[in-house]
Protein backbone atom coordinates (compact mmCIF):
# COMPACT_ATOMS: atom_id res chain seq x y z
CA UNK A 1 0.00 0.00 0.00
CA UNK A 2 2.62 2.45 1.09
CA UNK A 3 4.77 1.32 -1.79
CA UNK A 4 2.07 2.13 -4.29
CA UNK A 5 1.63 5.58 -2.83
CA UNK A 6 5.32 6.28 -3.02
CA UNK A 7 5.46 5.01 -6.57
CA UNK A 8 2.55 7.20 -7.57
CA UNK A 9 4.18 10.21 -5.97
CA UNK A 10 7.45 9.45 -7.69
CA UNK A 11 5.66 9.13 -11.00
CA UNK A 12 3.93 12.46 -10.54
CA UNK A 13 7.21 14.06 -9.58
CA UNK A 14 8.98 12.62 -12.61
CA UNK A 15 6.16 13.76 -14.90
CA UNK A 16 6.18 17.23 -13.40
CA UNK A 17 9.93 17.53 -13.82
CA UNK A 18 9.70 16.19 -17.34
CA UNK A 19 6.91 18.60 -18.11
CA UNK A 20 8.96 21.58 -17.15
CA UNK A 21 12.03 20.22 -18.86
CA UNK A 22 10.20 19.46 -22.08
CA UNK A 23 9.36 22.97 -23.00
CA UNK A 24 10.17 26.51 -22.18
CA UNK A 25 7.41 28.27 -20.23
CA UNK A 26 6.38 31.86 -19.67
CA UNK A 27 4.64 32.78 -16.43
CA UNK A 28 2.28 35.62 -17.29
CA UNK A 29 0.53 37.73 -14.66
CA UNK A 30 -2.34 39.42 -16.46
CA UNK A 31 -6.00 40.40 -16.69
CA UNK A 32 -8.79 38.02 -17.62
CA UNK A 33 -9.13 37.99 -21.39
CA UNK A 34 -5.67 39.37 -22.10
CA UNK A 35 -4.21 36.03 -23.16
CA UNK A 36 -6.72 34.34 -25.49
CA UNK A 37 -6.27 30.59 -25.95
CA UNK A 38 -5.99 30.98 -29.71
CA UNK A 39 -2.99 33.24 -29.33
CA UNK A 40 -1.36 31.08 -26.65
CA UNK A 41 -1.61 28.13 -29.03
CA UNK A 42 -0.20 30.11 -31.94
CA UNK A 43 2.67 31.39 -29.80
CA UNK A 44 3.51 27.84 -28.68
CA UNK A 45 3.62 26.69 -32.28
CA UNK A 46 5.81 29.60 -33.30
CA UNK A 47 8.30 29.64 -30.44
CA UNK A 48 7.81 26.41 -28.51
CA UNK A 49 7.09 28.45 -25.39
CA UNK A 50 4.08 27.54 -23.27
CA UNK A 51 2.39 30.62 -21.78
CA UNK A 52 0.92 30.07 -18.33
CA UNK A 53 -1.39 32.97 -17.51
CA UNK A 54 -2.50 33.91 -14.00
CA UNK A 55 -5.48 36.27 -14.03
CA UNK A 56 -5.64 39.15 -11.59
CA UNK A 57 -5.92 42.95 -11.28
CA UNK A 58 -3.64 45.90 -10.51
CA UNK A 59 -3.74 45.65 -6.73
CA UNK A 60 -3.13 41.91 -6.63
CA UNK A 61 -0.42 42.11 -9.26
CA UNK A 62 1.46 44.60 -7.14
CA UNK A 63 0.81 42.62 -3.95
CA UNK A 64 2.00 39.34 -5.48
CA UNK A 65 5.17 40.81 -6.92
CA UNK A 66 5.89 42.71 -3.73
CA UNK A 67 5.56 39.55 -1.68
CA UNK A 68 8.23 37.83 -3.79
CA UNK A 69 10.29 40.95 -4.56
CA UNK A 70 9.55 40.46 -8.23
CA UNK A 71 9.95 36.69 -8.55
CA UNK A 72 7.62 33.95 -9.76
CA UNK A 73 6.50 35.62 -12.98
CA UNK A 74 8.21 36.43 -16.24
CA UNK A 75 5.81 39.13 -17.37
CA UNK A 76 3.11 41.27 -15.73
CA UNK A 77 0.47 43.66 -17.07
CA UNK A 78 -0.22 46.53 -14.66
CA UNK A 79 -1.82 49.81 -15.77
CA UNK A 80 0.71 52.46 -16.71
CA UNK A 81 -0.26 54.93 -13.98
CA UNK A 82 0.34 52.34 -11.26
CA UNK A 83 3.94 51.50 -12.08
CA UNK A 84 6.37 54.29 -11.25
CA UNK A 85 5.47 54.95 -7.61
CA UNK A 86 5.45 51.21 -6.88
CA UNK A 87 8.75 50.74 -8.69
CA UNK A 88 10.36 53.66 -6.85
CA UNK A 89 9.25 52.22 -3.52
CA UNK A 90 9.70 48.47 -3.98
CA UNK A 91 11.82 47.86 -7.09
CA UNK A 92 9.76 44.90 -8.27
CA UNK A 93 10.35 45.38 -12.02
CA UNK A 94 13.41 45.53 -14.26
CA UNK A 95 13.95 48.26 -16.85
CA UNK A 96 12.69 47.49 -20.35
CA UNK A 97 15.37 47.09 -23.00
CA UNK A 98 13.53 48.96 -25.74
CA UNK A 99 16.06 47.67 -28.28
CA UNK A 100 14.39 44.28 -27.93
CA UNK A 101 10.89 45.64 -28.48
CA UNK A 102 9.70 46.03 -32.08
CA UNK A 103 8.77 49.67 -31.79
CA UNK A 104 7.67 49.86 -35.42
CA UNK A 105 4.51 47.84 -34.59
CA UNK A 106 3.52 50.16 -31.73
CA UNK A 107 1.60 53.45 -31.96
CA UNK A 108 4.40 55.90 -31.30
CA UNK A 109 2.52 58.38 -29.13
CA UNK A 110 1.37 55.61 -26.83
CA UNK A 111 4.84 54.14 -26.48
CA UNK A 112 6.27 57.55 -25.68
CA UNK A 113 3.54 58.27 -23.11
CA UNK A 114 4.12 54.97 -21.36
CA UNK A 115 7.89 55.43 -21.39
CA UNK A 116 7.49 58.87 -19.86
CA UNK A 117 4.99 57.76 -17.25
CA UNK A 118 7.00 54.78 -16.06
CA UNK A 119 10.27 56.65 -15.81
CA UNK A 120 12.13 55.94 -12.58
CA UNK A 121 15.73 57.11 -12.15
CA UNK A 122 16.22 57.61 -15.88
CA UNK A 123 14.87 54.20 -16.90
CA UNK A 124 11.45 53.21 -18.20
CA UNK A 125 9.63 50.09 -17.14
CA UNK A 126 6.74 49.33 -19.48
CA UNK A 127 5.49 48.70 -23.00
CA UNK A 128 1.87 49.63 -23.84
CA UNK A 129 -0.54 46.83 -24.70
CA UNK A 130 -4.29 47.43 -24.26
CA UNK A 131 -6.08 50.75 -23.83
CA UNK A 132 -9.54 52.11 -23.29
CA UNK A 133 -11.14 55.33 -22.17
CA UNK A 134 -13.55 56.96 -19.79
CA UNK A 135 -15.98 58.85 -22.02
CA UNK A 136 -19.69 59.38 -22.45
CA UNK A 137 -22.59 57.16 -23.41
CA UNK A 138 -25.30 59.36 -24.89
CA UNK A 139 -28.86 58.78 -26.01
CA UNK A 140 -28.64 61.04 -29.03
CA UNK A 141 -32.38 61.18 -29.58
CA UNK A 142 -33.13 62.36 -26.04
CA UNK A 143 -29.99 64.41 -25.43
CA UNK A 144 -28.81 65.50 -28.87
CA UNK A 145 -26.37 68.13 -27.67
CA UNK A 146 -24.45 66.12 -25.09
CA UNK A 147 -20.82 65.97 -26.16
CA UNK A 148 -18.61 66.75 -23.20
CA UNK A 149 -18.06 65.97 -19.54
CA UNK A 150 -19.59 69.34 -18.72
CA UNK A 151 -22.93 68.01 -19.99
CA UNK A 152 -23.01 65.78 -16.92
CA UNK A 153 -23.67 69.05 -15.07
CA UNK A 154 -25.97 70.54 -17.70
CA UNK A 155 -29.38 71.49 -16.21
CA UNK A 156 -30.90 70.63 -19.58
CA UNK A 157 -30.50 66.95 -18.70
CA UNK A 158 -31.84 67.20 -15.15
CA UNK A 159 -32.63 63.83 -13.66
CA UNK A 160 -31.24 61.99 -16.69
CA UNK A 161 -27.56 61.98 -15.86
CA UNK A 162 -25.44 59.22 -14.37
CA UNK A 163 -21.80 58.81 -13.42
CA UNK A 164 -19.66 57.09 -10.84
CA UNK A 165 -18.44 58.85 -7.74
CA UNK A 166 -14.85 57.83 -8.38
CA UNK A 167 -11.65 59.67 -9.13
CA UNK A 168 -12.13 59.60 -12.94
CA UNK A 169 -15.28 61.70 -12.48
CA UNK A 170 -13.40 64.37 -10.51
CA UNK A 171 -10.77 64.53 -13.20
CA UNK A 172 -13.35 64.54 -15.99
CA UNK A 173 -15.24 67.39 -14.32
CA UNK A 174 -12.04 69.39 -14.05
CA UNK A 175 -11.37 68.87 -17.76
CA UNK A 176 -14.97 69.85 -18.46
CA UNK A 177 -14.29 73.10 -16.59
CA UNK A 178 -11.42 73.75 -18.96
CA UNK A 179 -8.76 72.93 -16.36
CA UNK A 180 -5.94 70.42 -16.61
CA UNK A 181 -5.84 68.46 -13.35
CA UNK A 182 -2.94 66.32 -14.54
CA UNK A 183 -0.76 69.44 -14.75
CA UNK A 184 -1.31 69.93 -11.01
CA UNK A 185 -0.46 66.36 -9.99
CA UNK A 186 2.81 67.42 -8.43
CA UNK A 187 1.38 70.44 -6.65
CA UNK A 188 -0.87 68.99 -3.96
CA UNK A 189 -1.97 72.40 -2.69
CA UNK A 190 -3.12 73.60 -6.10
CA UNK A 191 -4.63 70.19 -6.82
CA UNK A 192 -6.56 70.33 -3.57
CA UNK A 193 -7.91 73.75 -4.50
CA UNK A 194 -9.00 72.54 -7.93
CA UNK A 195 -10.60 69.45 -6.43
CA UNK A 196 -12.54 71.60 -3.98
CA UNK A 197 -13.93 73.59 -6.91
CA UNK A 198 -14.75 70.34 -8.69
CA UNK A 199 -16.41 69.01 -5.54
CA UNK A 200 -18.57 72.11 -5.26
CA UNK A 201 -19.60 71.73 -8.92
CA UNK A 202 -20.60 68.15 -8.33
CA UNK A 203 -22.50 69.08 -5.17
CA UNK A 204 -24.34 71.83 -7.07
CA UNK A 205 -25.08 69.32 -9.83
CA UNK A 206 -26.28 66.63 -7.48
CA UNK A 207 -29.95 67.30 -8.14
CA UNK A 208 -29.36 66.56 -11.83
CA UNK A 209 -28.14 63.05 -11.14
CA UNK A 210 -30.43 60.08 -11.56
CA UNK A 211 -28.01 57.58 -10.12
CA UNK A 212 -24.35 57.38 -9.18
CA UNK A 213 -23.72 54.10 -10.88
CA UNK A 214 -21.46 51.43 -9.49
CA UNK A 215 -22.47 48.42 -11.53
CA UNK A 216 -22.01 48.62 -15.28
CA UNK A 217 -24.92 46.35 -16.06
CA UNK A 218 -27.28 48.42 -13.92
CA UNK A 219 -26.21 51.55 -15.81
CA UNK A 220 -26.86 49.90 -19.16
CA UNK A 221 -30.28 48.82 -17.87
CA UNK A 222 -31.10 52.41 -16.86
CA UNK A 223 -30.09 53.67 -20.30
CA UNK A 224 -32.07 50.95 -21.99
CA UNK A 225 -35.18 51.84 -19.96
CA UNK A 226 -34.80 55.51 -20.90
CA UNK A 227 -34.15 56.58 -17.31
CA UNK A 228 -30.70 57.92 -18.12
CA UNK A 229 -29.74 59.87 -21.25
CA UNK A 230 -26.16 60.95 -20.54
CA UNK A 231 -23.65 58.87 -18.62
CA UNK A 232 -19.95 58.75 -18.07
CA UNK A 233 -18.74 55.24 -18.84
CA UNK A 234 -16.43 53.03 -20.90
CA UNK A 235 -16.73 52.40 -24.61
CA UNK A 236 -17.69 48.71 -24.42
CA UNK A 237 -20.98 49.54 -22.72
CA UNK A 238 -21.85 52.23 -25.24
CA UNK A 239 -21.16 49.89 -28.12
CA UNK A 240 -23.20 47.13 -26.57
CA UNK A 241 -26.20 49.48 -26.30
CA UNK A 242 -25.63 50.81 -29.81
CA UNK A 243 -26.18 47.28 -31.06
CA UNK A 244 -29.62 47.23 -29.46
CA UNK A 245 -30.62 50.84 -30.02
CA UNK A 246 -28.83 52.93 -32.66
CA UNK A 247 -29.81 56.15 -30.83
CA UNK A 248 -27.40 55.29 -28.04
CA UNK A 249 -23.67 55.34 -28.58
CA UNK A 250 -20.30 55.99 -27.00
CA UNK A 251 -19.09 59.55 -27.49
CA UNK A 252 -15.52 60.70 -27.02
CA UNK A 253 -15.87 63.95 -25.01
CA UNK A 254 -14.84 67.23 -26.60
CA UNK A 255 -12.32 68.03 -23.90
CA UNK A 256 -10.67 64.67 -24.52
CA UNK A 257 -11.52 61.18 -23.35
CA UNK A 258 -9.40 60.00 -20.45
CA UNK A 259 -7.34 57.01 -21.36
CA UNK A 260 -5.98 54.12 -19.39
CA UNK A 261 -3.28 51.83 -20.75
CA UNK A 262 -2.46 48.36 -19.51
CA UNK A 263 1.16 47.54 -20.15
CA UNK A 264 3.78 44.83 -20.21
CA UNK A 265 6.33 44.97 -17.39
CA UNK A 266 9.06 42.48 -16.60
CA UNK A 267 9.36 41.54 -12.92
CA UNK A 268 12.78 42.06 -11.34
CA UNK A 269 13.48 38.35 -10.90
CA UNK A 270 11.88 37.03 -14.09
CA UNK A 271 13.46 33.78 -15.27
CA UNK A 272 12.49 33.82 -18.92
CA UNK A 273 13.24 37.39 -19.97
CA UNK A 274 13.89 36.46 -23.60
CA UNK A 275 10.52 34.70 -23.74
CA UNK A 276 8.88 37.78 -22.22
CA UNK A 277 10.14 39.99 -25.06
CA UNK A 278 8.99 37.38 -27.56
CA UNK A 279 5.44 37.44 -26.13
CA UNK A 280 5.41 41.26 -26.09
CA UNK A 281 6.39 41.44 -29.75
CA UNK A 282 4.02 38.60 -30.61
CA UNK A 283 1.00 40.20 -28.93
CA UNK A 284 1.67 43.57 -30.55
CA UNK A 285 2.00 42.10 -34.02
CA UNK A 286 -1.03 43.57 -35.85
CA UNK A 287 -2.61 40.29 -36.95
CA UNK A 288 -2.43 38.91 -33.39
CA UNK A 289 -3.59 42.13 -31.79
CA UNK A 290 -6.58 42.05 -34.15
CA UNK A 291 -7.50 38.57 -32.89
CA UNK A 292 -7.45 39.93 -29.35
CA UNK A 293 -9.55 43.00 -30.23
CA UNK A 294 -12.16 40.92 -32.04
CA UNK A 295 -12.67 38.91 -28.87
CA UNK A 296 -12.35 41.56 -26.17
CA UNK A 297 -13.45 44.68 -28.10
CA UNK A 298 -10.57 46.63 -26.55
CA UNK A 299 -8.11 48.24 -28.91
CA UNK A 300 -4.37 47.73 -28.50
CA UNK A 301 -1.22 49.76 -28.97
CA UNK A 302 -0.49 47.69 -32.07
CA UNK A 303 -0.21 50.05 -35.01
CA UNK A 304 -2.77 49.33 -37.71
CA UNK A 305 -4.21 46.26 -35.99
CA UNK A 306 -7.65 47.80 -35.99
CA UNK A 307 -7.69 47.66 -39.81
CA UNK A 308 -7.45 43.90 -39.57
CA UNK A 309 -10.41 43.54 -37.17
CA UNK A 310 -13.94 42.40 -37.98
CA UNK A 311 -15.83 45.19 -39.73
CA UNK A 312 -18.41 45.36 -36.93
CA UNK A 313 -15.74 45.81 -34.27
CA UNK A 314 -13.87 48.28 -36.40
CA UNK A 315 -17.02 50.28 -37.05
CA UNK A 316 -17.37 50.87 -33.30
CA UNK A 317 -13.97 52.49 -33.02
CA UNK A 318 -14.29 54.45 -36.22
CA UNK A 319 -17.74 55.72 -35.28
CA UNK A 320 -16.72 56.85 -31.80
CA UNK A 321 -13.12 57.96 -32.30
CA UNK A 322 -11.87 60.18 -35.08
CA UNK A 323 -8.11 60.57 -35.34
CA UNK A 324 -8.56 63.95 -33.63
CA UNK A 325 -10.39 62.29 -30.75
CA UNK A 326 -7.56 59.81 -30.37
CA UNK A 327 -4.96 62.58 -30.40
CA UNK A 328 -6.94 64.41 -27.71
CA UNK A 329 -7.06 61.49 -25.30
CA UNK A 330 -5.70 62.50 -21.88
CA UNK A 331 -3.72 59.53 -20.67
CA UNK A 332 -3.75 59.07 -16.92
CA UNK A 333 -0.35 60.08 -15.58
CA UNK A 334 1.15 58.21 -12.63
CA UNK A 335 -0.75 58.95 -9.45
CA UNK A 336 1.39 60.55 -6.74
CA UNK A 337 0.75 59.15 -3.29
CA UNK A 338 -0.90 62.18 -1.67
CA UNK A 339 -3.66 62.79 -4.21
CA UNK A 340 -5.91 59.86 -3.51
CA UNK A 341 -6.49 61.07 0.03
CA UNK A 342 -7.48 64.53 -1.21
CA UNK A 343 -9.82 62.99 -3.78
CA UNK A 344 -11.31 60.60 -1.27
CA UNK A 345 -12.28 63.45 1.01
CA UNK A 346 -13.84 65.42 -1.83
CA UNK A 347 -15.80 62.38 -2.97
CA UNK A 348 -17.05 61.85 0.57
CA UNK A 349 -18.18 65.47 0.67
CA UNK A 350 -20.10 65.07 -2.56
CA UNK A 351 -21.67 61.87 -1.30
CA UNK A 352 -22.61 63.43 2.01
CA UNK A 353 -24.14 66.57 0.47
CA UNK A 354 -27.89 66.81 0.08
Amino acid sequence: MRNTTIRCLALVLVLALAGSAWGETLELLTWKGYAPDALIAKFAKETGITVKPTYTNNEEMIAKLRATRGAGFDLAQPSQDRISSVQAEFGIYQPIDYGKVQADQITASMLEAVKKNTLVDGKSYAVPHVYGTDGLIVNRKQAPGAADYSDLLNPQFKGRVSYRLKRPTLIATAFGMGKDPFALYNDPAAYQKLMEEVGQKLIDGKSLVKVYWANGDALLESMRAGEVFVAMAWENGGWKLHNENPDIDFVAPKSGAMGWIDTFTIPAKAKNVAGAYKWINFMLRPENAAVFTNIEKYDTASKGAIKLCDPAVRANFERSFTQADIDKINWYPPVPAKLEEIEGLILDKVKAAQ
Partner: protein
Amino acid sequence: MKDRSLFKTAVIALVSLWIVALVCLPNLLVVAASFLERDEFRFVRPALTLDNYRQVFDPVFFAIFMRSFGFAAATTALALAAGYPFATLLARSRFRRTLLVLVVIPFWTSSLVRTYALIGLLKAKGIVNSLLLATGLVREPLSLLYTDGAVLLGLVYTLLPFMILPLYAAIEKLDPQLSEAGYDLGASRWQVLWHVTLPVTLPGIVAGSILVFLPALGIFYVPDLLGGAKSMLLGNLIKNQFLTARHWPFGSAVSVFLTLLMGLLLWGYYASLKRFNPDLAGTPR
Protein backbone atom coordinates in the same frame (compact mmCIF):
# COMPACT_ATOMS: atom_id res chain seq x y z
CA MET B 1 -17.82 9.99 31.38
CA LYS B 2 -14.22 10.74 30.65
CA ASP B 3 -14.97 10.81 26.92
CA ARG B 4 -17.74 13.25 27.39
CA SER B 5 -15.60 15.67 29.32
CA LEU B 6 -12.96 15.35 26.62
CA PHE B 7 -15.62 16.14 24.03
CA LYS B 8 -16.78 19.04 26.13
CA THR B 9 -13.26 20.41 26.45
CA ALA B 10 -12.67 20.05 22.74
CA VAL B 11 -15.88 21.82 21.82
CA ILE B 12 -15.24 24.64 24.27
CA ALA B 13 -11.66 24.97 23.06
CA LEU B 14 -12.80 25.05 19.45
CA VAL B 15 -15.46 27.66 20.11
CA SER B 16 -13.07 29.78 22.17
CA LEU B 17 -10.47 29.52 19.47
CA TRP B 18 -13.08 30.50 16.92
CA ILE B 19 -14.14 33.52 18.92
CA VAL B 20 -10.60 34.63 19.64
CA ALA B 21 -9.32 34.14 16.10
CA LEU B 22 -12.32 35.33 14.14
CA VAL B 23 -14.05 37.78 16.46
CA CYS B 24 -11.72 39.23 19.08
CA LEU B 25 -8.60 39.45 16.96
CA PRO B 26 -10.17 41.17 13.94
CA ASN B 27 -11.96 43.61 16.23
CA LEU B 28 -8.74 44.39 18.04
CA LEU B 29 -7.07 44.95 14.69
CA VAL B 30 -9.81 47.41 13.76
CA VAL B 31 -9.37 49.24 17.05
CA ALA B 32 -5.60 49.30 16.56
CA ALA B 33 -5.88 50.53 12.96
CA SER B 34 -8.12 53.37 14.07
CA PHE B 35 -5.24 54.89 16.00
CA LEU B 36 -2.70 54.63 13.18
CA GLU B 37 -1.88 56.81 10.21
CA ARG B 38 -2.85 56.08 6.63
CA ASP B 39 -0.23 54.70 4.30
CA GLU B 40 -0.53 54.54 0.54
CA PHE B 41 1.14 51.18 0.14
CA ARG B 42 0.74 49.32 3.41
CA PHE B 43 -2.72 50.70 4.28
CA VAL B 44 -1.55 51.73 7.76
CA ARG B 45 1.63 53.31 9.04
CA PRO B 46 2.65 52.40 12.57
CA ALA B 47 2.48 55.94 13.93
CA LEU B 48 -0.03 56.77 16.64
CA THR B 49 -2.57 59.51 15.98
CA LEU B 50 -6.01 60.66 17.07
CA ASP B 51 -6.69 62.38 13.76
CA ASN B 52 -9.06 59.67 12.60
CA TYR B 53 -11.34 60.28 15.54
CA ARG B 54 -11.08 64.02 15.07
CA GLN B 55 -12.18 63.49 11.48
CA VAL B 56 -15.28 61.63 12.65
CA PHE B 57 -16.55 64.94 14.01
CA ASP B 58 -15.82 66.86 10.82
CA PRO B 59 -19.06 68.59 9.77
CA VAL B 60 -19.17 66.62 6.51
CA PHE B 61 -19.12 63.29 8.25
CA PHE B 62 -21.24 64.47 11.09
CA ALA B 63 -23.95 65.26 8.54
CA ILE B 64 -23.73 61.62 7.43
CA PHE B 65 -24.14 60.48 11.02
CA MET B 66 -27.20 62.65 11.48
CA ARG B 67 -28.76 61.49 8.22
CA SER B 68 -28.02 57.87 9.04
CA PHE B 69 -29.71 58.25 12.41
CA GLY B 70 -32.65 59.89 10.69
CA PHE B 71 -33.01 57.02 8.24
CA ALA B 72 -32.48 54.39 10.93
CA ALA B 73 -35.03 56.05 13.22
CA ALA B 74 -37.60 56.34 10.43
CA THR B 75 -36.97 52.72 9.47
CA THR B 76 -37.44 51.63 13.08
CA ALA B 77 -40.65 53.65 13.46
CA LEU B 78 -42.13 52.27 10.23
CA ALA B 79 -41.09 48.72 11.06
CA LEU B 80 -42.64 49.09 14.51
CA ALA B 81 -45.84 50.54 13.07
CA ALA B 82 -46.11 47.67 10.60
CA GLY B 83 -44.68 45.00 12.87
CA TYR B 84 -46.69 45.51 16.06
CA PRO B 85 -50.14 44.88 14.56
CA PHE B 86 -48.75 41.99 12.58
CA ALA B 87 -47.08 40.45 15.62
CA THR B 88 -50.33 40.81 17.59
CA LEU B 89 -52.19 39.09 14.79
CA LEU B 90 -49.52 36.44 14.65
CA ALA B 91 -49.71 35.74 18.37
CA ARG B 92 -53.47 35.32 18.27
CA SER B 93 -53.94 33.67 14.90
CA ARG B 94 -54.95 30.07 14.35
CA PHE B 95 -52.46 29.99 11.47
CA ARG B 96 -49.61 31.07 13.66
CA ARG B 97 -47.18 28.49 12.32
CA THR B 98 -47.87 29.28 8.69
CA LEU B 99 -47.57 32.98 9.33
CA LEU B 100 -44.29 32.51 11.23
CA VAL B 101 -42.90 30.52 8.34
CA LEU B 102 -43.94 33.34 6.01
CA VAL B 103 -42.02 35.80 8.16
CA VAL B 104 -38.92 33.63 8.11
CA ILE B 105 -39.01 32.54 4.46
CA PRO B 106 -37.27 35.68 3.14
CA PHE B 107 -34.19 34.70 5.16
CA TRP B 108 -33.75 31.74 2.85
CA THR B 109 -32.76 34.15 0.08
CA SER B 110 -29.83 36.52 0.26
CA SER B 111 -31.01 39.99 1.16
CA LEU B 112 -28.92 41.32 -1.70
CA VAL B 113 -30.99 39.26 -4.13
CA ARG B 114 -34.17 40.54 -2.51
CA THR B 115 -32.93 44.10 -2.91
CA TYR B 116 -32.47 43.44 -6.60
CA ALA B 117 -36.03 42.13 -6.65
CA LEU B 118 -37.14 45.51 -5.28
CA ILE B 119 -35.30 47.16 -8.16
CA GLY B 120 -37.33 44.99 -10.49
CA LEU B 121 -40.49 46.31 -8.85
CA LEU B 122 -39.53 49.97 -8.77
CA LYS B 123 -37.59 50.68 -11.97
CA ALA B 124 -38.99 52.74 -14.84
CA LYS B 125 -40.12 49.67 -16.76
CA GLY B 126 -40.68 47.72 -13.55
CA ILE B 127 -43.73 45.91 -12.27
CA VAL B 128 -45.25 48.80 -10.32
CA ASN B 129 -44.90 51.28 -13.16
CA SER B 130 -46.19 48.78 -15.71
CA LEU B 131 -49.28 48.19 -13.58
CA LEU B 132 -49.87 51.91 -13.08
CA LEU B 133 -49.46 52.58 -16.79
CA ALA B 134 -51.68 49.67 -17.78
CA THR B 135 -54.49 50.79 -15.49
CA GLY B 136 -54.14 54.34 -16.77
CA LEU B 137 -53.45 55.77 -13.31
CA VAL B 138 -50.35 57.52 -14.62
CA ARG B 139 -49.27 58.49 -18.11
CA GLU B 140 -45.53 58.70 -17.57
CA PRO B 141 -43.64 56.13 -15.50
CA LEU B 142 -43.07 57.42 -11.96
CA SER B 143 -39.55 57.92 -10.67
CA LEU B 144 -39.62 55.41 -7.85
CA LEU B 145 -36.17 53.95 -7.98
CA TYR B 146 -33.16 56.00 -6.82
CA THR B 147 -35.15 58.05 -4.31
CA ASP B 148 -35.01 58.35 -0.52
CA GLY B 149 -38.41 56.67 -0.42
CA ALA B 150 -36.96 53.65 -2.18
CA VAL B 151 -34.14 53.49 0.37
CA LEU B 152 -36.61 53.62 3.24
CA LEU B 153 -38.77 50.95 1.64
CA GLY B 154 -35.72 48.74 1.17
CA LEU B 155 -34.56 49.19 4.75
CA VAL B 156 -37.99 48.51 6.24
CA TYR B 157 -38.54 45.52 3.98
CA THR B 158 -35.17 43.98 4.78
CA LEU B 159 -35.36 44.52 8.53
CA LEU B 160 -39.04 43.94 9.27
CA PRO B 161 -38.60 40.30 10.38
CA PHE B 162 -36.13 41.45 13.03
CA MET B 163 -38.88 43.62 14.44
CA ILE B 164 -41.67 41.07 14.18
CA LEU B 165 -39.93 38.14 15.84
CA PRO B 166 -39.04 39.78 19.19
CA LEU B 167 -42.44 41.49 19.25
CA TYR B 168 -44.12 38.18 18.65
CA ALA B 169 -42.14 36.60 21.47
CA ALA B 170 -43.16 39.38 23.85
CA ILE B 171 -46.81 39.54 22.80
CA GLU B 172 -47.22 35.78 22.88
CA LYS B 173 -46.13 35.74 26.51
CA LEU B 174 -48.61 38.47 27.35
CA ASP B 175 -51.15 37.08 29.81
CA PRO B 176 -54.62 37.77 28.31
CA GLN B 177 -55.95 38.04 31.84
CA LEU B 178 -54.09 41.30 32.25
CA SER B 179 -56.03 42.94 29.43
CA GLU B 180 -59.27 41.39 30.67
CA ALA B 181 -58.63 42.84 34.10
CA GLY B 182 -58.15 46.22 32.42
CA TYR B 183 -61.46 45.94 30.61
CA ASP B 184 -63.17 44.80 33.80
CA LEU B 185 -61.95 47.93 35.48
CA GLY B 186 -63.59 50.01 32.78
CA ALA B 187 -60.63 50.84 30.57
CA SER B 188 -61.18 51.51 26.88
CA ARG B 189 -59.29 49.56 24.18
CA TRP B 190 -56.77 52.38 23.81
CA GLN B 191 -56.29 52.68 27.54
CA VAL B 192 -55.60 48.96 27.80
CA LEU B 193 -53.15 49.15 24.91
CA TRP B 194 -51.38 52.16 26.37
CA HIS B 195 -51.36 51.23 30.06
CA VAL B 196 -51.21 47.44 29.93
CA THR B 197 -50.16 45.90 26.64
CA LEU B 198 -47.45 48.31 25.61
CA PRO B 199 -45.61 48.45 28.96
CA VAL B 200 -45.65 44.67 29.30
CA THR B 201 -44.40 44.13 25.76
CA LEU B 202 -41.89 46.97 26.00
CA PRO B 203 -38.85 44.67 26.20
CA GLY B 204 -39.97 43.19 22.88
CA ILE B 205 -40.39 46.65 21.40
CA VAL B 206 -36.97 47.72 22.60
CA ALA B 207 -35.32 44.51 21.40
CA GLY B 208 -36.99 44.77 18.01
CA SER B 209 -36.08 48.42 17.70
CA ILE B 210 -32.44 47.73 18.47
CA LEU B 211 -32.37 44.84 16.03
CA VAL B 212 -33.74 47.13 13.33
CA PHE B 213 -31.99 50.37 14.22
CA LEU B 214 -28.45 49.02 14.40
CA PRO B 215 -28.35 47.14 11.09
CA ALA B 216 -30.14 50.07 9.43
CA LEU B 217 -27.05 52.13 10.23
CA GLY B 218 -24.78 49.57 8.64
CA ILE B 219 -26.54 48.16 5.58
CA PHE B 220 -24.65 49.80 2.74
CA TYR B 221 -26.07 48.05 -0.28
CA VAL B 222 -29.62 49.32 0.17
CA PRO B 223 -28.77 53.05 -0.22
CA ASP B 224 -26.31 52.11 -2.97
CA LEU B 225 -28.72 50.02 -4.99
CA LEU B 226 -32.08 51.64 -4.29
CA GLY B 227 -30.96 55.21 -3.63
CA GLY B 228 -28.55 55.40 -6.56
CA ALA B 229 -25.76 55.98 -4.05
CA LYS B 230 -27.02 59.55 -3.70
CA SER B 231 -27.67 59.45 0.01
CA MET B 232 -24.71 58.21 1.93
CA LEU B 233 -25.26 56.43 5.21
CA LEU B 234 -22.79 55.25 7.82
CA GLY B 235 -22.41 51.81 6.32
CA ASN B 236 -21.57 53.34 2.95
CA LEU B 237 -19.05 55.62 4.59
CA ILE B 238 -17.23 52.71 6.19
CA LYS B 239 -17.34 50.53 3.11
CA ASN B 240 -16.13 53.46 1.05
CA GLN B 241 -13.17 54.16 3.33
CA PHE B 242 -12.01 50.57 3.11
CA LEU B 243 -12.66 49.79 -0.54
CA THR B 244 -12.52 53.07 -2.46
CA ALA B 245 -10.71 55.72 -0.47
CA ARG B 246 -8.39 53.08 1.00
CA HIS B 247 -8.27 55.03 4.23
CA TRP B 248 -8.39 52.07 6.59
CA PRO B 249 -7.60 54.02 9.78
CA PHE B 250 -10.51 56.41 9.27
CA GLY B 251 -12.83 53.56 8.27
CA SER B 252 -11.73 51.79 11.46
CA ALA B 253 -12.36 54.87 13.57
CA VAL B 254 -15.90 55.17 12.22
CA SER B 255 -16.44 51.44 12.86
CA VAL B 256 -15.21 51.78 16.44
CA PHE B 257 -17.43 54.81 16.92
CA LEU B 258 -20.42 52.89 15.59
CA THR B 259 -19.59 49.89 17.80
CA LEU B 260 -19.40 52.09 20.89
CA LEU B 261 -22.72 53.59 19.96
CA MET B 262 -24.28 50.18 19.56
CA GLY B 263 -22.85 49.23 22.94
CA LEU B 264 -24.50 52.28 24.43
CA LEU B 265 -27.84 51.32 22.91
CA LEU B 266 -27.56 47.76 24.22
CA TRP B 267 -26.77 49.13 27.65
CA GLY B 268 -29.90 51.25 27.32
CA TYR B 269 -31.81 48.11 26.48
CA TYR B 270 -30.70 46.32 29.60
CA ALA B 271 -31.38 49.40 31.67
CA SER B 272 -34.92 49.52 30.34
CA LEU B 273 -35.33 45.81 30.96
CA LYS B 274 -34.29 46.31 34.53
CA ARG B 275 -36.69 49.16 34.94
CA PHE B 276 -39.75 47.45 33.52
CA ASN B 277 -39.01 43.92 34.56
CA PRO B 278 -36.76 44.06 37.61
CA ASP B 279 -37.19 40.37 38.45
CA LEU B 280 -35.87 39.29 35.07
CA ALA B 281 -32.92 41.58 34.91
CA GLY B 282 -31.96 40.99 38.53
CA THR B 283 -31.29 37.30 38.00
CA PRO B 284 -29.29 36.82 34.86
CA ARG B 285 -29.46 33.34 33.48
